[in-house]
C-alpha cells in the first residue's frame, strides 16, 4: 500500500497537472488501481516504465470495461516488471461512452505489447486510441459496424440464419417471411 502511495506521490511530482487517484477494490481481491486522466496517461506510463524504482517494462494485459450506468468506458492496463519481478500496477483511464468522444491516448508507443490489445479494445468497445500506429479492427471483419462488447449492443436475433442452398434452411427462411430476417435487415439499412 505504501508503494502505491509512493508511486502516486512521485507521479504527481514528475508529471505537472496530473490528476491521479487510487481506486481501492473491495477485499478479497483488494487490488488497488490508479485512475489517471486521459491527458497524462502517456506521461505516467513513461514514468513507470523508465523509473529505476519501478521499471514496469511488461504491459501484460490491456482491456476495456463498459460501465453503462456510470456512462464511461474504462481502459485497464496491467503492468508488471520483468526486470524487478514485481507487479502488478493497474492503470485505469476513463473515456465517455459516446462514440464520438470515446478517445484515449494509445500506449503502444510506450509498450509495443499494447498494439494488438488496443486494437482489440477498439474493435470490441469502440475506444479510439489516438497515436496508435495501426488502429484497425482485428477480430471482427472490417465491414462490421457495431462494437459487440458494449453493454448496449443488441445481437442479431437469429445467429443461425445462413443463406445456404440447404432445403430446410431455405424453407425456414421463407417461413420467416422473406429472404432476409428482420435482424439482418436492420443491419442492411445501416
Amino acid at each position: 500500500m505504501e508503494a502505491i502511495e509512493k508511486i502516486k506521490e512521485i507521479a504527481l511530482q514528475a508529471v505537472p497537472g496530473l490528476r491521479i487517484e487510487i481506486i481501492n477494490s473491495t477485499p478479497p481481491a483488494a487490488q488497488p488501481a490508479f485512475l489517471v486522466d486521459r491527458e497524462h496517461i502517456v506521461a505516467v506510463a513513461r514514468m513507470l516504465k523508465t523509473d529505476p524504482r519501478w521499471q514496469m517494462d511488461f504491459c501484460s494485459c490491456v482491456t476495456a470495461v463498459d460501465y453503462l450506468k456510470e456512462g464511461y468506458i474504462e481502459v485497464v492496463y496491467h503492468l508488471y516488471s520483468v526486470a524487478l519481478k514485481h507487479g502488478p500496477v493497474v492503470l485505469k483511464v476513463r473515456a465517455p461512452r459516446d462514440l464520438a468522444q470515446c478517445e484515449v491516448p494509445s500506449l503502444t508507443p510506450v509498450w509495443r505489447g499494447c498494439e494488438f490489445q488496443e486494437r482489440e479494445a477498439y474493435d470490441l468497445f469502440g475506444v479510439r486510441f489516438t497515436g496508435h500506429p495501426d488502429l484497425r479492427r482485428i477480430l471482427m471483419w472490417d465491414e462490421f459496424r457495431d462494437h459487440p462488447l458494449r453493454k448496449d449492443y443488441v445481437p442479431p436475433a437469429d445467429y443461425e440464419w445462413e443463406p445456404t442452398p440447404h432445403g430446410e434452411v431455405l424453407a425456414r427462411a421463407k417461413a420467416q417471411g422473406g429472404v432476409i430476417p428482420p435482424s439482418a435487415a436492420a443491419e442492411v439499412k445501416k
Partner: protein
Amino acid sequence: MSAPVVIETQTLEVSIGPQHPSTHGVFRMDVVLDGEVVVKLKPVMGYLHRNHEQLAEKMPWIASMPYTDRLDYFCSMSNNWAYALAVEKLAGIQVPERAEYIRVIMAELTRLQNHAAAVGFLLSDCGAWFTPVLYAFRERERILDFFEAVSGSRMMCNYCRFGGVRVDLTEQTLAMARGIVERFPRFLDEFEKLMTENEVLMARTQRVGILPKALAIDASISGPMARASGVEYDIRKVDGYGVYPRFEFQVPVGETGDVYDRYMIRILEMRQAVKILQQALRDIPAGPFQNPAVKLRNFKIPAGDGYGRIESPKGELGFYLVADAAGKNPYRYHVRPPSFINLTILEDMCLGHKVADVVVILGSVDIVLGEVDR
C-alpha cells in the same frame, strides 16, 4: 566498368491462409514478397471469433468453465486453472492442498503434451513429414487417456471448480500418471535423437526469426518464446501461485531467441515438467479435493475486479474479471490470451526471411486459433 544493370522487379502479394496447411488453423498472413523474401507481413485473424467474452458475461460464473476449455483446446486444464484462479482471487476462496497438487499435476501434464505437439508441428512445418508429430501424439495419447480417465473427456476437460477440482484422483489414476511420467523421458530422448542434432533442422532454424530480448519484453511476449530470447521470467517462479514454490525446478533460458532456441526451450521445459511431476506425484497429500464451502449453484462474488494469471504452456494466460453488485454473472470477463499477444511481433521476426521461414517462425510461436480469435 559499366553501370550495374538494375532489373526492375515487382513485389508479389500472397495471402497465406486462412486455408493453408501450416497456419495452424484459420489464420491469415498478408505477405508481400520480393522474390522469396518477405518485405511486409500483416497477420489477419478473427476467423474463429465467437465473442467468447460476451458469452461469458451473460452466464453464471461456473458456466464459463467449459467454455475456457475451448480457448486453447490443447491445454484445457491450464485454462480451467487460470479461470478458477482468477475467480478464487476475486472471491477469496481457499483451495485445499490436495486440489492444488492435482492442479499442478494436470497443468504439467498439459505442458508436456502441448510442448510435444508444438515441437512436432514445428518440425512438420520444417518439412519433416509428420513423423515427429506422430511420435509426439503417441505420447500425447497416453496423457489424453489419463485426462479422460480422470475428468471424463480427452480435450474438453472442464475439470477445475472454484475451490478445488471436480473429480478426485484415485490410486488407479495416480498409477496411470506415474506410468506416463516414467516413460516420458524415454520419449524425449528418442525425440531429441531424431531431430535435435539434425543438421538440416539446425540449418533451417538457427538464426531464423530472431527476437531480441528488449523487444520481447517490450512487446509483452511471454512463455517459452520470451524465455528463448533470454527473458528470465516464469510466472510459476515469480508469482508462485498454487503450490509451485514447493517444487524444485529450473527455468531454461535461451540466448539468441531464434526458432532453434524456441524449439530447445520447449524440450528443456518438458524435462523440467517431468521433474515437477515426479515431485508432485510423490508428495501429493491426502485430504479433500474441493472446498466444501463453495457452492456450485447460485455462486456469487462480491463486487470488485481482479486479474489472475498463470504460466500456461503458451505463455501468460490471464483472466481479468469484474464483478458488479449483483455478482451472479461476470460484469466483465476478459482473457489475456498468450498466443494472441505473442503474434504482435510476427512481422518483426519475419521481415527479410524467406517464405519457407515464415511458416517455421509461425510454428515456433505456437499459436492456437481458438485462443487467438476467442
